[in-house]
């Protein structure tokens, strides 16, 4: 709802935006959010697309810095790049910005319509 942030931040956000602009990738991120670090075998469970396709999506997300893959034995474990806490703080910062804007509108409303 709010449009804050400098042009530079928007440019930084662009690859993330592109990476998440896909239903499968968004679902993968949601899975990693809720269930923590997962292997590709787990991430492919119940998916409507092939494991190869999932792998491709995971690499796209990794390139955008949204997730990170680490090798464990023969498989790769994927986890969210910003940690849960960072994510929560970032979310709260956005809700906070929206409240600032709402309270500013309330201020103008009550001060200009006595």
């Amino acid at each position: 709802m709010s449009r804050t942030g400098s042009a530079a931040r928007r440019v930084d956000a662009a690859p993330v935006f592109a990476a998440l602009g896909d239903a499968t990738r968004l679902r993968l991120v949601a899975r990693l959010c809720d269930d923590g670090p997962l292997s590709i075998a787990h991430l492919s469970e119940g998916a409507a697309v092939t494991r190869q396709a999932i792998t491709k999506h995971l690499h796209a997300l990794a390139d955008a810095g949204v997730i990170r893959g680490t090798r464990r034995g023969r498989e790769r474990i994927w986890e969210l790049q910003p940690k849960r806490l960072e994510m929560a703080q970032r979310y709260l910062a956005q809700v906070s910005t929206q409240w600032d804007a709402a309270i500013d509108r309330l201020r103008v409303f009550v001060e200009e319509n006595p």
Partner: protein
Amino acid sequence: MTTVNMEMTSTDRIEKRTVLRAPRSRVWRAITNADEFSAWFGVKLEGAIAEGAAVRGRLTHPGYENVTLEMLVERIQPESLFSYRWHPGAVDASVDYTPEPMTLVEFRLDEEGGETILTVVESGFDRLPASRRAEAFRMNDGGWTSQLKRIEKYVTNG
């Protein structure tokens, strides 16, 4: 211009405290009269704000007109406390937010020298699913998306 002070004590709550140059009765009306709330918040609420009421309305922010906001009113203590529950950031019309926990929003008013000290607290974020918070990425880019749409409209109309 903004004199809102922010205290962030945890990831569970947001607290805002500010002084409004208007009497407490004026601010109370602005936050508890559905038409007045609608005007500054950017929504078109239908029905009156009353304890226990579910008040709904469409957002009026450009680009969000298809989003319906629902407030479950909890407490109304005249000129002192108004609280309700809602789904924060529920701006994706294709998502059903109803199974998710709601956050609690509290407006508290105090008067000092003819001015009003307003405290807004929103709490309960820690109970939200982690995936909802992950949308911070999308929300951030939401502004970006609507900017792009605006540019596209401008270009195609021009």
